[in-house]
């Protein structure tokens, strides 16, 4: 004979005991990792890393705000952008060409140094004579080709400068 009842006496939860049990179980399951991890922790502590990381994490939101604030200033974003631009520039130059040009520039420097040590003046005729030298001619040809390429690059509109905003959909 059972009349309906709604009263439920919950066994008091021993949360401390439950937590201990979970930790114990985890310790048994991952003993190796824990021992290694403790080693790492000790090393970090000795190098003074722990207080820094702890402070960073504890103040996470505030730190993030400061960092984002600092980073989002125009000078910084431009700097970052330029850095990435330089990296991109370097990444588009074929390395073998770069090597040849560096090599040639080195030779040029070598000769230039010799020239400055000799401290000789060049007359107009000397210049005309030098223009007939095939080595000088090659350099000039390359320079003109470079100027031509750069000029055509300047004629292209920049990516951020597009006027066309496109249709709405």
């Amino acid at each position: 004979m059972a009349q309906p009842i709604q009263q439920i006496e919950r066994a008091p939860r021993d949360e401390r005991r439950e937590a201990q049990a979970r930790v114990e179980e985890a310790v048994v399951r991952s003993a190796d990792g824990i021992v290694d991890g403790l080693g790492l922790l000790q090393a970090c502590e000795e190098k003074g890393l722990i207080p820094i990381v702890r402070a960073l994490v504890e103040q996470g939101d505030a730190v993030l705000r400061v960092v984002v604030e600092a980073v989002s200033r125009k000078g910084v974003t431009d700097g970052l952008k330029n850095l990435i631009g330089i990296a991109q520039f370097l990444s588009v130059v074929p390395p073998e060409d770069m090597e040849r040009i560096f090599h040639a520039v080195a030779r040029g420097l070598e000769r230039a140094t010799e020239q400055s040590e000799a401290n000789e003046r060049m007359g107009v005729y000397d210049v005309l004579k030098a223009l007939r030298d095939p080595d000088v001619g090659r350099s000039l040809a390359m320079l003109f080709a470079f100027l031509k390429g750069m000029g055509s690059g300047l004629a292209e509109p920049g990516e951020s400068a597009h006027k066309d905003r496109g249709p709405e959909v």
Partner: protein
Amino acid sequence: MSVDVKRTFTLDGSPLTATEGQTILQAMLAAGLDFPHICYHPALGPIQTCDTCMVEVDGDLVRACATPVADGMSVRTKSVAARYARKEAMDRILKNHDLYCTVCDNNNGNCVVHNTTMAMDIDHQSYPFREKPYEVDMSHPFYRYDPSQCILCGRCVEACQNLQVSEVLSIDWDREIPRVIWDNDVPINESSCVSCGHCVTVCPCNALMEKSMLGKAGFLTGIEPEPLQRMIDVTKAVEPGYRAIFAISEVESHMRNARIKRTKTVCTYCGVGCSFDIWTKDRDILKVEPQMEAPTNQISTCVKGKFGWDFVNSPERLTKPLLRKGDAFHEVSWDEALDFVAKRLTEIRQQYGDDAVALISSSKCTNEENYLVQKLARAVLHTNNVDNCSRYCQSPATEGLRRTMGYGGDTGSLHDLAIADLLIIVGANPAESHPVFSTRMRRAKKKYGQKHIVIDLREHDLAHRADLFVRPNPGTDLVLISAVTKYIIDQGWHDDEFVRQHVDGFDAFVRSLEPYTLEYAERVTGVPRDTLVQIATMIHEAKSTCICWAMGVTQHKGGSETSTAICNLLLVTGNVGRPGTGAYPLRGHNNVQGAGDMGCSPVYMPGYERVDDPAVRAKYETAWGVELPTSKGLDNHEMVDAIHEGKLRALIIQGEEMALVDSNSHYVREAFAKLDLLVVIDVFFSKTAEYADVVLAASPSLEKEGTFTNTERRIQRLYQVFEPLGDSRPDWIILRDLANRLGANWTYTHPSEILEEIASLAVLMQGVRWDRLEGYRSLQWPVHPDGTDTPLLYTNGFPFPNGKARLVPAKWIEPTAFAPEYDLHLNNGRMLEHFHEGNLTYRVHGLKEKVPTTYLEVSPELAKERGIETGALVRIISPYGELKLPVVVTDRVKGKQMYLPMNTSNDEEAINILTSSESDETTHTPAYKELQVRMEVIRPCGESPMTRFNYRMHKPNPQPGVRVERKWSRRGYVPVTEAAKEKARG
């Protein structure tokens, strides 16, 4: 068959074949080729809004998604013009979508916009991103819309208009900057949106997102909005191109896999059997993500399946067994609880005999658990007193089908319902009770012109849309169906050849129809004879007809008889055993079919093999190594009587809220109070549990493995998402441990072992194997030993000795009579947002916000007569009890008929306080639908019990689809092909 016709064409010079009707994109995808596309979705077809799939065909630029393959066609994807067109399309999309992937909650490897941008190797966009001048809509409890992220692909609109067919969403192309709107542009939460989630599921980006994902899915997405926005700005200011951004977001997306778990599960909210992935992070549910490979629902869900799972983490969950001690329940250990149950069961059996104990299994539990319940009853407790809740719903349908066709299940699949010419829906409300089935019905009607006849008291969603809506007098469906059948035969419209070859008993059946003339039917049903003729004519003219029915038919004294009449009609018209035909008794709960299949019934062993067949018993006695009981078992209904008679002393109820869901609640509860032992196995402390001696804390579907069988006879596996909460345990473990305390020595360590045992014994399930059900694979019984299953029944005859079906004369049983003072008819059923008595769904915050309580639907005529309006409070009185209910006046109901959704656990509002103990003559299913009451007005007006967040309050906005031609005719619109040509020229 047209499907076999092949088309051969060349793609960038290589030959490729396509099937008839396939578009270029479909052929490419079918061949396993990757090609950009955003708005095309396999469940929705071509939408033609995004233009990212442009190709060149014989010199012209066309959309690959919408261009059918023709023989000899030459398709070039790599031509300069096609590439420019695709780039132009993508540029326009990126103008409408800010790429902040790394800090976006949708960056989970499946973002279509992200993946397409990356696959197209887009490094820069030509048009800068701009926000749209609209606020984010956060009003809905379950999802948000961010217009500024919306690319206007229209997938959501197409899904809403033509797959779910709730017709709420559209794109307003007439604005300067278009956006998706709800209804006539109202906040989402105050629209006619039924919250099915289709739009969110198909959204190719983060414009529509589950709120449960926001701030939770990513590593960086939980950051406060202000620094987050700054981070997005910095990233975008610094990033010189998208390749680098994508590299980082890819890494982050892979990292998310480490902590977001995706698990396939099967929904428990109705008999449709939707399956989907559920995404979790620890015990948080991030979202439900349906998959195209899901055999029944593909990407479809309803509000409960998509958003209704938070109950698993409810603080009210039972986490330890409870034992009644004095005036209170005390939490005890499993050993103490199970030892107590075993001891008491043994004492009661010794004192009163084996049949003083009974078990009721649960249609919410797995097949394996149901099998164990009946095995516990028969093999361990030595009684056939075992039943399940299909007794409350579809037993009469099973009876009707078994009598006439042989198998007690739907004859085909959802696919057949979708391809039928004509659907007849009798006493069923699929839009609210089987929501995903209803999507396919509405889609077939809207897109392919399927005809619908709805026979019902109440003008529900499908009735409202039907070609013919018929309202017969309550409880007279058998007369209506028999008269239509007779008229068809009288006209010579029956399928004579089918009947001669495949059906027995035609002559006797025709004689039994003699009384059912049109005149008689008109008199009894109140349906004009012209309408009856119209129904017959529509059946005659349709090439294929399916009939769906549910509780409106079965929950009557003549439920089995009416079900039989429906089967007879299908047989004489030859609407069985062919694609697009058949009988569909829509099962209400996820595993009603399985609970019956597993032998949780006093007369059947698993697979509907009869208990009184000595050969069957011998098979199980050998397998189980025990002697089986031969005494006749009790069904649910008889159990309650037997308790009152003092014969039944102990009852074990698994996951059923019998104190609310059995009819005539007062009588049932008085019975519970008389028991010597009541054991309740449940997830929550239910009303039934209040009467228990022991309550065993069970784990719901998300916390265990096993299989469910849906209404299509489809067996599907569910995978474990979470560990059981607290000390709760899956039912199969509880049952095993209890059986072993009673000396059973069961050694099951996993549900797969139980399934193998079932397959080795039940002929119907012979070929069922755990590994054949892996992932989204499924099997529809009967399953042959080689694993071949049967999506469509009776293609090779019927499972009777001569292979023929049987026409069984059905007799009309008049509905229960009430004294004249009970002058109003009270109907009851479900509402979309809640399940059953609501123990689960009222614990989901958003569902409760949408629909906080049940309410009484009263017709405008009756309201006027009684001087009440919406918000009135009335007392409803039957001979068995009384309720106090808030009123909603609506023309869904007519005249003196009222309607009360059954979804409440409040005793002041629960329908079964009023219902009688009358039942179906054959199966004892309670006649819930035969109820007359009277009304007393307590308060004539007041606050409406429906909040403005209830979709029923609002008006949808039907559209043919996304209406892309409106986009094309916008002023200033330039086709991508034109724009691309200009650019190609420089």
